């Protein structure tokens, strides 16, 4: 009995697939305090805990789990927050299975401790207890830092810098702060009230958040550094330029980039139309293209907007899908139809400028390509059509040149992302640091947060000496 308990983690209860595809509410309900204590008790409190090494922001995992065991939930939340300003977010969207949890010793024989679930629990618990504690105000340094972009990278950097006593302004192009957390990741995976809560916390720490500020247009980086008196800038503008398939018919009505579809649905709340003004086409038969997390999020949103049929069309096999296994599982459970080894070759016009079908080719896997995955090649004479009224390429994003074009002395790499030192975020331009997706290309919330943390540290150093030595 004891052994069995140790082997399997406490499952989080969740909405049934039948129920949840009818609404936009979060899928898992979260742990109860008892469940959290029980799950935390599975932790062996290893002498040399490996889990910590798997956390890009170095959360003291064993200590916070120990506090949960002892029923000290608020203290556990503070422990997490020493390193991670966004625990309720990370508990929900981090790929723990390839980070901390992959190193948990229990994983060798059974399931690792559900570190992500526990992180989520303590953050939610603290929030449900009302007043969230803020640390004591630090001594004011008189230095000013501008942060461009309010995604996880920008938010983390802002939180760390304000704790060092600098004056911090966070500039965001959209009307709401949060980056991908508000415009991309859907409500049912990350409720927007949670992002708001985290942003409120950062404001309470003293960060000034300026929305509707498109940097490059409203102010340039040079104006911020010179005219506006900022001593340093951190650029965390994400990788927000959508890629299209480049096939005929892609501009027909009913074809959306994943960015547009998700922005309409999440940020603009088109799922509440007409209470909210922004419309989105509610397709009856929807196809999403790609194999990543964004593809799956898009498919699941389409389903919740009332689609009778949602196809996920991917040119390789399920093995090669970059999406998290848990997400693939959710998609299967919800009845999304996977059309694997299938490649779209054109969208078909209904004669009125709307899409009515997609033409596809069947594929087979050939030799491995540079990514190490087997390259899909089309099978001759295998073309067929699938009837759809909404088609959504979700095949990735690139670097948005809007801001970068206005900073000619900022070195970019071949792909158009900012060249920045991984450990410090330093760029080729004095006083300018960068991190997150705008440096790495689309990655993860926690990696952007890690970059924000490292940049905050080196900005602190820089503000002391104003010394610049970029070696790349």
């Amino acid at each position, binding site marked *: 009995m004891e052994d069995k308990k140790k082997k399997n983690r406490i499952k989080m209860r969740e909405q049934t697939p039948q129920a949840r595809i009818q609404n936009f509410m979060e899928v898992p309900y979260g742990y109860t305090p008892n469940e959290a204590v029980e799950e935390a008790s599975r932790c062996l409190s290893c002498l040399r805990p490996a889990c910590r090494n798997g956390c890009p922001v170095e959360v003291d995992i064993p200590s916070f789990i120990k506090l949960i065991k002892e029923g000290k939930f608020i203290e556990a939340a503070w422990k997490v927050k020493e390193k991670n300003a966004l625990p309720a977010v990370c508990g929900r969207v981090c790929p723990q299975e390839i980070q901390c949890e992959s190193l948990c010793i229990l994983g060798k024989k059974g399931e690792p401790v559900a570190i992500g679930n526990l992180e989520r629990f303590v953050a939610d618990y603290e929030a449900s207890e009302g007043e969230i504690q803020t640390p004591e105000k630090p001594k004011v340094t008189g230095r000013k830092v501008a942060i461009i972009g309010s995604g996880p990278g920008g938010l983390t950097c802002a939180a760390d810098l304000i704790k060092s006593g600098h004056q911090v302004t966070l500039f965001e192009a959209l*009307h709401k702060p949060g980056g991908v957390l508000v415009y991309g990741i859907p409500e049912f995976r990350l409720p927007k009230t949670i992002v708001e809560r985290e942003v409120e916390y950062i404001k309470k720490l003293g960060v000034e958040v300026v929305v*509707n500020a498109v940097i490059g247009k*409203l102010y340039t980086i040079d104006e911020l550094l010179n005219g506006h008196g900022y001593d340093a800038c951190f650029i965390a503008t994400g990788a927000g330029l959508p890629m299209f398939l480049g096939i005929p018919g892609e501009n027909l009505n009913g074809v959306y980039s994943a960015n547009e579809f998700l922005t309409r649905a999440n940020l603009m709340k088109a799922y509440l*139309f007409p209470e909210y003004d922004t419309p989105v086409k509610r397709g009856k038969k929807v196809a999403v293209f790609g194999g990543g997390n964004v593809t799956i999020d898009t498919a699941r949103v389409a389903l919740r907007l009332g689609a009778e049929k949602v196809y996920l069309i991917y040119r390789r096999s399920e093995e090669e899908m970059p999406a998290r296994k848990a997400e693939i599982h959710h998609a299967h459970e919800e009845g999304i139809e996977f059309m694997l080894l299938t490649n779209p070759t054109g969208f078909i016009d209904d004669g009125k400028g709307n899409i009515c079908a997609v033409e596809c080719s069947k594929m087979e896997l050939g030799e491995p390509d540079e990514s190490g995955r087997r390259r899909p090649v089309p099978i001759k004479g295998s073309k067929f059509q699938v009837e759809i009224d909404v088609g959504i390429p979700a095949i990735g994003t690139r670097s948005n040149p809007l801001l970068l074009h206005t900073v000619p002395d900022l070195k970019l790499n071949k792909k158009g992302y900012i060249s920045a030192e991984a450990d410090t975020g330093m760029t080729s331009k004095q006083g300018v640091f960068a991190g997150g997706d705008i440096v790495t290309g689309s990655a993860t919330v926690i990696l952007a947060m890690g970059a924000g943390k490292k940049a905050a540290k080196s900005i602190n150093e820089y503000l002391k000496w104003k010394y610049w030595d970029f070696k790349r």
Partner: protein
Amino acid sequence: MFEIVKKEELSDAVTLFEIEAEDIAKKAKAGNFFILKINEQGERIPLTIADFDRDRGTITTVFQKIGKTTHHLGTLNEGGFISDVIGPLGKPAHIEDFGTVVCVGGGVGIAPVYPIAKAFKEAGNTVISIIGARTKNLIFWEDKMRAVSDDLIVTTDDGSHGRKSVVTVPLDELLRTDKSINLVIAIGPAIMMKFVCITSEKYNVKTLVSLNSIMVDGTGMCGSCRIEVGGEIKFACVDGPEFDGHKVDFDLLMARQRMYLDEEKFALQRYLESYKEKKGGK
């Protein structure tokens, strides 16, 4: 929050707002646009910056009441507030001394053509302007346009004011007779811009148009505004809004503008009904 400091009804359907937005005014140039969102539930819509006043710290915009958002906007008054104003967006118009230019503004497009005509005049060009609308009540800024033009031609479809014709008729005459014309600028409904381009192409005169596709973010992030120019996909919000009209696929633009026709109709009707109820209840 952005305050409406001045409101003026320019015609039956066209309203002018001067909005306090100091930092945007500082950076605005002819040809730029901005995006606004009225309130929490609102959608983001692009509007042209028809004028700006750096001293007063304001931008001026002109809109026609077409859908729900613009009708709602029309009910706001001086001293009222708009929750979000984002800009200046888009590339500014390319202004230099081309010699003689013709500026064509159709309907509510008269507003965005005005700052461009003014800038061309200031840059030393001879400016001939043509403004047109369906009927007399929809023409506005005739004086303002005249002040920045060497010659102004007014047309209405029904002949209730100025010449009874569409804008392309006088344009064709001008291009036929005046070989010194080096550039045409056209802003207005897509169908008007399309025919202006067909006209000017006959005479091989370069034509710039300003495209008003459906937008969400206005920063190149979503692709909602995409159009085809010379067979390539372009994003009107960041690559434009000004493009070489002879290369634009206007039929695609018009099809894409109709994408949400049903939703727009539904939302407008619902809005007008609730607005009537509210008014009646008071």
